[in-house]
């Protein structure tokens, strides 16, 4: 579904991603993991079109999307959340979610868009907040609204950037169930995540990054047992 081929991204003198290749299969949950600063978020930004890669190519369903602007990639069915949550402060909760339904590849308008957005809010457990101004939301609720916005565009591929971070154990279970249900309805999910429980129970496969390069790829059990991966996370002494 998604094919990343020898992608590199340079910021000034810093090579954030180097010669990275991996593929995401249709209807799978792929975990993109690695220590802080290993370039995971940059990869999501490259896929969603927020950044242009310095080298390499990205395909969505065999279509080259490397040089497409973010809006085209969004309309092609790629939705995302942001690591540092970005709700639209002067819009209501409902309007925030409608933004996804109106301009994404669904392109609904009027009552249809509103109803669709309401259903997404219900789904993430925010039905009570529909008419609220976004200023009244807690951080966790902001994350939910942002996910509802991404869902409102009915994405085929969903990129989640540490969406589960900061949830308490009960919330975490609900969150994991929610992501699982997304996969069950046929969506493909790419997770950047640090919560290991979630990775073990959700991901079909994992790609592990360190220092901008891929150091391992495989099932969660395989990759998390990999010597290289342990060294990357814990340092040389413990390996």
């Amino acid at each position, binding site marked *: 579904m998604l094919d990343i081929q020898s992608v590199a991204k340079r910021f000034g003198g810093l090579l954030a991603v180097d010669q990275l290749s991996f593929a995401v299969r249709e209807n799978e949950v792929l975990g993109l993991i690695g220590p802080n600063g290993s370039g995971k978020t940059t990869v999501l930004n490259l896929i969603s*079109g927020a950044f242009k890669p310095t080298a390499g190519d990205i395909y969505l369903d065999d279509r080259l999307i490397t040089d497409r602007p973010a809006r085209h990639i969004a309309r092609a069915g790629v939705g995302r959340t942001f690591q540092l949550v970005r709700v639209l402060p002067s*819009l209501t909760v409902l309007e925030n979610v*409608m933004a996804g339904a109106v301009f994404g590849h669904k392109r609904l308008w009027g009552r249809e868009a509103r109803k669709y957005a309401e259903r997404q809010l219900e789904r993430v457990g925010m039905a009570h907040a529909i008419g609220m101004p976004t200023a009244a939301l807690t951080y966790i609720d902001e994350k939910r609204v942002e996910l509802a916005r991404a869902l409102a565009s009915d994405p085929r591929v969903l990129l989640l950037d540490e969406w589960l971070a900061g949830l308490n154990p009960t919330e975490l279970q609900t969150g994991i169930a929610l992501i699982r249900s997304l996969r069950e309805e046929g969506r493909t999910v790419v997770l950047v995540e640090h919560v290991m429980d979630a990775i073990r129970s959700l991901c079909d496969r994992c790609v592990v990054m360190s220092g901008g390069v891929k150091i391992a790829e495989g099932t969660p059990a395989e990759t998390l047992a990999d010597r290289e991966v342990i060294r990357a996370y814990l340092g040389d002494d413990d390996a």
Partner: protein
Amino acid sequence: MTRAEARNLALAAAAFALLAFLPFLKDSGYLLSVSVSIAMYTVLATSWALFSGPTHYISLATAAFYGLGAYVVAAGIGTISYPLLLVLAGIAGAVLALAVGVTTLRLSGVYFVIFTLGLAELIRQVVTWVQNNLTGSRGMYVLTEITERIIYWELLGLAALVYLVGWLVARSRLGFALRIIGNDELVAAHVGINSAAAKLILFVISGVFAAVVGAVMAPRYTYIEPSIAYSPELSFQVVIMALIGGAHRLWGPLVGVIPFALLWELIAARFPTQTVLLLGVAFLLIVYFIPHGVVGRIESALERLRRGTRRG
């Protein structure tokens, strides 16, 4: 359309119909001349806010569009019919807005502001050069049968049009897109909005209105020369009025226009040499003390009141 919207629309239509009778009042000379400037500033400030309100891109180029429109009339009067000239002025405004927009709107707002800052002066230089080298005269006479009454009605019509356009935009996908862009351009791109195109459309709309206003006002001057048509004060006044009222609501600028236009008549008559200084001081007071405009102040006060009653 909801019932409340229908009611507001009917009220607005009634208000405009009533205002249209103003020139028939007895001894309406002074009233009419004040009303002409209020109507002019209303169209300019409202169309300015249509673009700058949601996007926060500050255009300092109203005078450039206004002057362009006035010059189209001055150059074509006598050979081309007046209504056609208004259309041509609108087209000229659209072309200028497109040129400015295409070069600057895909970049950050600062470039846009800088570009518009000198635009009036640039066009003034070019027009002066064209006149010196091609026509050989410094100014142009605009002699028409058009009375102040007709100008007033034309401006009133434009005002109705600008409100209609603003209302339609606010109800459309485009209006929603602009609100999202004003909040967070990165999110806008990631939900599939073409920000540059949305901004460009609105900037062209506001440019067309300013150019047509210039064309409508041209007969009032009788003699037009570059320094009259491209006065930087006009751009400045428009920004002030829109900001006093509040640029984030369609009717916000009107709240600023009426008191400011009246005050301005007074200042221009009393202190003709200090107008620029007073204008600057007024502007600073607004930026520092009512950054969200009077309408913003009223709204936050209402909000506080509402919250207070809910709690009680």
